[in-house]
């Protein structure tokens, strides 16, 4: 009568843990929000939120920080998902950044990320007064995330102060805040990329089709395939898009997100591919290779 039995025990444990975390957020914070970035982790997070509060709807809205450079398919998927599930979706773009014409191509990825993601997120959190922001980050994504808390404390001004993080024992989370302070919460902390895909398969969760292999127009840049998603991507002289069978392991702003050549056309194919994977997930993400330990620095500035 239920599909629960089909879930392998370790996924069931991870699922229950994440549901417990989501409920704790709903119970302890005044105004929580779920940061919805449209990727697979967000899809899983949203699915878990639906489960955690069933039969009620999740008691918080979704927030998407739109840089205006996301893949078109991502935006279409976002709008369709919110409409289908009947959940509240807030979309925020940094108006000043937009007015200044900040973009990932001529402004550079570092500035673009700073203004259109980090700044924009802070603006949105302040504007609505959210005191807890739930995100889909995982500890296995990158070395420096291995020690991140599940409830990550942010001082007034959203700064992440490594010295003021609170020890987390058992499943007891210290959620106390003073005015101006906030919390970032990561229910998927203990999931790996493989867990996420296995869960997508087991629970039949919809994700953006960009994750699946398909012939797409791409150009080769800096050792990765960049998709020509719209006419805003300037082509170098002599550079012509070619059709390649590619897919994405992570999704972000299209000029900054590299595709990999792959034949994996379904979540199950991806699980199989990952079992033999020889490249880590972040390898397709250009923002991390900007500088060493850039993630650490971005976090201090309030990047998710």
């Amino acid at each position, binding site marked *: 009568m239920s*599909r629960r039995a089909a879930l392998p025990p370790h996924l*069931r444990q991870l699922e229950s843990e994440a549901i417990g975390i989501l409920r704790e957020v709903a119970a302890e914070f005044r105004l929580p929000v779920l940061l919805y970035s449209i990727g697979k982790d967000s899809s899983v997070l949203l699915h878990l939120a639906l489960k955690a509060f*069933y*039969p009620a709807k999740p008691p918080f809205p979704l927030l998407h920080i739109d840089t205006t450079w996301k893949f078109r398919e991502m935006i279409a998927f976002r709008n369709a998902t919110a409409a289908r599930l009947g959940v509240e979706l807030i979309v925020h773009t940094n108006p000043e950044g937009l007015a200044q014409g900040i973009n990932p191509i001529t402004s550079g990825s570092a500035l673009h990320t700073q203004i259109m993601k980090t700044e924009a997120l802070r603006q949105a959190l302040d504007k609505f007064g959210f005191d807890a922001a739930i995100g889909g980050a995982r500890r296995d994504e990158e070395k420096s995330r291995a*020690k991140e808390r599940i409830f990550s404390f942010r001082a007034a001004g959203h700064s992440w102060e490594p010295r003021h993080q609170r020890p987390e024992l058992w499943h007891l989370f*210290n959620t106390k805040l003073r005015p101006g302070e906030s919390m970032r919460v990561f229910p998927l902390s203990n999931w790996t990329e493989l867990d996420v895909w296995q869960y997508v398969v087991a629970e039949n969760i919809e994700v953006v089709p960009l994750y699946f292999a398909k012939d797409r127009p791409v150009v080769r840049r800096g050792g990765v395939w960049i998709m020509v998603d719209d006419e805003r991507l300037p082509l170098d002289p002599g550079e012509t898009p070619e059709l390649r069978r590619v897919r994405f392991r992570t999704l972000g702003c299209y000029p900054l997100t590299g595709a990999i050549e792959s034949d994996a056309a379904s979540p199950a194919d991806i699980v199989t591919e990952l079992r033999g994977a020889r490249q880590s997930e972040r390898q397709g993400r250009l923002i991390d290779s900007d500088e060493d330990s850039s993630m650490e620095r971005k976090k201090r500035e309030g990047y998710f």
Partner: protein
Amino acid sequence: MDSAPAAGRPLLRFLTCGSVDDGKSTLIGRLLYDSEAILADQLEALERESKRFGTTGEDIDLALLLDGLEDERQQGITIDVAYRFFATKRRSFIVADSPGHEQYTRNMATGASTADLALLLVDARKGIIAQTRRHSLICSLLGIRHVVLAVNKLDLVGFDKATFAAIEAEYRRYVTDFDFRSLQAVPISARYGDNVATRSASTPWYAGPSLLEYLETVDAERREAAAGFRFPVQWINRPNAEFRGFAGTVAAGSVAPGDAVVVTGSGTTTTIKEIVTFDGPVIRADPGDAVTLTLRDEIDVTRGDLLTGAKSRAEFADQFAAHVIWMKDEPLVPGRSYWLKIGPRTVPATVTSLKHRIDVDTGAHIAARTLALNEIGFCNLSAARPIAFDRYAANRDTGGFILIDRVSNETAAAGMIEFGLHRATNIHLQALNVSPSDRAMLKGQQAAVVWLTGLSGSGKSTIANALESKLLAMGAHSMLLDGDNVRHGLNRDLGFTDTDRVENIRRLGEVAKLMADAGLIVITAFISPFRADRQMAREIAAPHAFIEIFVDTPLDECIRRDPKGLYARAKTGEIPNFTGIDSPYEAPDAPELRLRTIGATADTLAENLIETLRERGIVH
């Protein structure tokens, strides 16, 4: 359609412990490497880094796979635990790895709190050392029941059987007083991989499993013998008037529709109607399952309540004994009020007495008046309201708690309940015929505690005296408690250490409360420098009105006035712990009234105070 065979075993969460250079990083790196958790681009980076920073000559240095936790500690970044993940075809693992020396107790405890097994590393050349005992003690205290003793660097002792056997035998003797249920010793070389993933040809005398084989198959589930059903209510689910569900995670036992359950505390009994999940109703929920329960009867249940089986009730008390690990830079102050969070319930609580401190290296009990960062103590606690709990040894989720500093919000301590103290439950409050409000009414007033706080010399006593004269003139019944006077009598035995200041305020708070019970308007004039202590006085006084008055005079002005010549003496060091000089004053954030004394007379300020009392209906 699922091409991935569903791994049949539950996750294994384990903690690694070892002293610096025992090879902990190398071993974790080896486990990640051998389980193919390392990807090609990471491997390339590793080869590059090994050439530059490696300690292993030409070979790749697996320890470099892990973040340099020690370096980060030097940069002042607090890392208590780093979590790593790997999976084999048979099982998924979460490894908790704690760095550091000074912070070790706190970090290890954090990692151990969610671990089911400890992987304890020793260097074959050194054998069992003092730290091995320390690690074992912390693991045991935190409820880890399964231990793997990895005897590492066996290559450096020529894979000698006798060395391994001697270490294993010594360790088994060592841990007889700990409550471990399984103990497996494995001879390994983390660097060369012997007996890590596969059994080694260099140890033909060892018949046991390789480390990874053992971890893949060990049954480390916490299955408490005959555990009753435990369900802490985390969130009330009310989408509409028809549905009222109680969401939470089963902490022990299992439950099915039709089972009788009881709400601890109120003692109300009811029956489970349905176990609701997104995937449809289920016929049973087991430990670890996050579900929503509906009940047959409409009874009062709120977040923080504990539902248990009707025949297997939890303890319910406001006083209990617990082990406490102190995690905050400022030491524990017995008597001070902290938030205590246990499951989804948060209540104010104080440590009433510290029985002893535990020396983690020897296990000895040492008399102590306070606990510093990373110290473990055994103490009695008193909560403002009774709480539902189990012994920690019986259930981590219903027996573990944290203490939170009420001012800074830091997590101050982790605690493990050992037993409830029934002493308190036997002292029942005597119901009285005449109530406090009867007594106040007879006097034509409402009882209140008017609490003046401020620096020495700020003008508290002068204003308090002026206020009381005015009250007398109005025919109101009052009592003025002055700090200095009380220290000559009731609190003669107390000094000015943090601990004594807390006790000072506690007694004054109780005296003020008794007098308010008598129907009086109680005026107090104490420096009362700590926010947490004033908060405690406020809670003691409840339900009487508590009016906190901040007598706000800048420090230099107090020093200039210095009516009793105390600042002059404090500055020469003659009076230690003097507020404002070498002991802090925490100004109130939101006092009921703030009196700025510069440029105002005591008489006008007292008049302001009378006005405040009128507004609140205390006097007419």
